[in-house]
């Protein structure tokens, strides 16, 4: 997660010339990956790298963590009138870089209720993690989620941000099942 005001400055500078602006570098603040509400409803939760995220049951007996994306208003120009960015997500273990989850989808944005000039994804995004890839432990391992927001499939300069987190199995009824399918 990064600080948004920095992004405004960078974007303002970038847009001052006649050439098309360079895409904001990862961590510029044009896009911020945060956590989502545990029930999957709307709501961006700012978190720091290394945060614990609770694995939520879902997807026909699987587990996921919820994330949310926050965009600066200026960054929306890139996505056209509909402002529905194409999101590519890659979650990897930080130790060996093993890919544990990937997805591509479009998402709808809405004005952030608690941050003027910012836009959040309409609902929290479930990042599917379990059942984990065969032989790969996912729960209680540090993962890095890289999110690319692009105008379309051919956009060569997507906006990128990352979040490092540790998925944790929930306590209670689902814990044993979670541990069974999230440890490879």
């Amino acid at each position: 997660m990064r600080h948004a005001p920095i992004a405004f400055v960078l974007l303002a500078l970038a847009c001052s010339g006649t050439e098309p602006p360079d895409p904001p570098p990862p961590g510029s603040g044009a896009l911020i990956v945060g956590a989502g509400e545990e029930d999957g409803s709307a709501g961006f939760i700012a978190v720091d790298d290394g945060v614990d995220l609770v694995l939520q049951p879902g997807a026909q007996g699987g587990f996921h963590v919820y994330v949310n994306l926050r965009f600066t208003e200026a960054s929306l120009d890139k996505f056209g009138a509909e402002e529905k960015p194409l999101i590519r997500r890659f979650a990897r273990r930080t130790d060996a870089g093993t890919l544990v989850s990937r997805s591509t989808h479009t998402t709808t944005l809405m004005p952030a209720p608690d941050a003027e000039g910012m836009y959040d994804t309409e609902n929290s995004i479930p990042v599917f993690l379990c059942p984990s890839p065969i032989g790969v432990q996912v729960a209680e391992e540090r993962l890095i989620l890289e999110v690319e927001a692009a105008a379309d499939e051919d956009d060569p300069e997507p906006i990128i941000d990352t979040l490092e987190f540790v998925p944790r199995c929930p306590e209670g009824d689902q814990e044993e099942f979670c541990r069974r399918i999230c440890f490879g």
Partner: protein
Amino acid sequence: MTRTTTTLAALCSATALVMLAPNRADACGCFAPPDPSVPVVQAGERIVFAHEDGMVTAHIQIQYQGDASEFGWLLPLPAVPEEGLKLGVEELFSQIINTTQPKYRVDRITPDSCEFQFGGRLAGSFNDSAQSPPNAEGGEKLVVLQDSIGPYDYVVLDASTKDEMFDWLVENGYFIPTGTEDVVQPYIYSGAYFLALKLRKGNDVGDVQPVVLRYKADYAMIPIVLTSVAANPDMGIQVWVLGEHRAIPRNYRHTILNEEHIDWFNAGANYNDVVIAATNEATDGQSFVTEYAGSVEPMRGLLNYDGRFGSYEEIKRITDAVEFLRYMRQRGFTFGGALTTVLQAYFPVPAGSDPFVADDFYNFPDAYLDQYKRDRPEAYAEEYQFDPVELADKLWERIVVPTLDAGALFDKWPKMTRMYTTLSPDEMTRDPVFSFNPDLPDVESEHVATFTYLCDATQDGANNTPGIFELPDGRRFYLENTGAWTAKNRSSVPYSRRIEFLREEGPPTIEVDNSADLSSSTAGDNGCACSASETAGNGLASLLALLGLGGFALTRRFRGPNR
């Protein structure tokens, strides 16, 4: 099939033998014989998945035998299906099964020295044809969606609590098999949903047809754990995944078969047994075989070719039964199957028809009714009045729209992957999830071995002449005759060539490589106790034979010491 086994779905266990190369009734009235190089598999569960933009589309074939009143189907869902439940068509499955079916073929090579030939060719391929193998009143929060489509009543229930959901299902006539409560818990949580299905009143088992669901999910998944309460041993699970890239089993192992176990000279008749044995060599028996991965091109236009089904506006104006049926035949309606159940309600078999006609009537209703019309025009005029608009509506709902939608799948995605495994109930402990890997190569469905006759030494017709049998992986075996391959005892030889993990990127990670065992296992095969180097000698002899240079002495030289 027992009552229990009938109900759960994705989750449907099968006891019915299903021919993967279904006979096709042509307009001439003849039946094309099944492809002899196609092995028979009994698959208990067949699903075609497509995945795009965070949405999974699942076409699920429901295999059911039993009483209509006991038909029930439960499926856990990660989200309320968009657009509710839709109907699918059997034709999707018959076509995609046929198009992607693994085939095992032996090309027989007959050098000049052989006095027998196949089809007048000196050296060419021979497709071995021997022995083809055989709301109700639910609470508002609990009932999320309730509707009917085609032959089904269905409901989507909030699965936050098990007891409440089960009570509702029982009270409303949905069948729940014994044992479900023991395995359902992982699917019960706040925000989870269950789809339940039953046959509408007035429909019977013959009305069962595939269903289509579309819901939000990152990955396609089969809730096989739930199936375990209703599964047969070694139940087949066949899945096709359409997408941008080759699909993989994310949380199951992946097996490369040792094709040495295939009954090549009987068109791979034992294929299913080989898959069962090979996947059982993987930990927990949880491994898939990729049977095809490649372009969807062979499927394009098969279901939705231009002009198919004609025009709704045209057909609904045809009031004569024979003309209506002729219009259907000329525009690609496939008679039999689901169409039979639709037509039965409008065009009954003429009273007094002999049993053969009664059995065959719905395969050729246009021809039979045309005859009846000519023989008994007055009775025909009286008995075959019907509402063409109503019938056209039903056809479009049950047949036309589902078929065209299924065909459109193959216009949308470039690749399809066919995977297969067999699982017994005790192995159904993990729901298989499917993903993609853009780095993996395609997999062909056709496997071709060669058998090169060694006619210089001795020859006794096509089946009793020795030769060199070469597997697609390059291993060669001397055979006294073609029957020797099938008769050979290979019980100590692994059925898996390799067991591996397929990731979502990069090459496979090999867990078990049996290559060394396979090589040594070829020694002593069939009276030719060849050492590794002598196996190579076989290859040389084979080459020489192919070139017409393999003289008797050379052939004897590699065989002689070992006989």
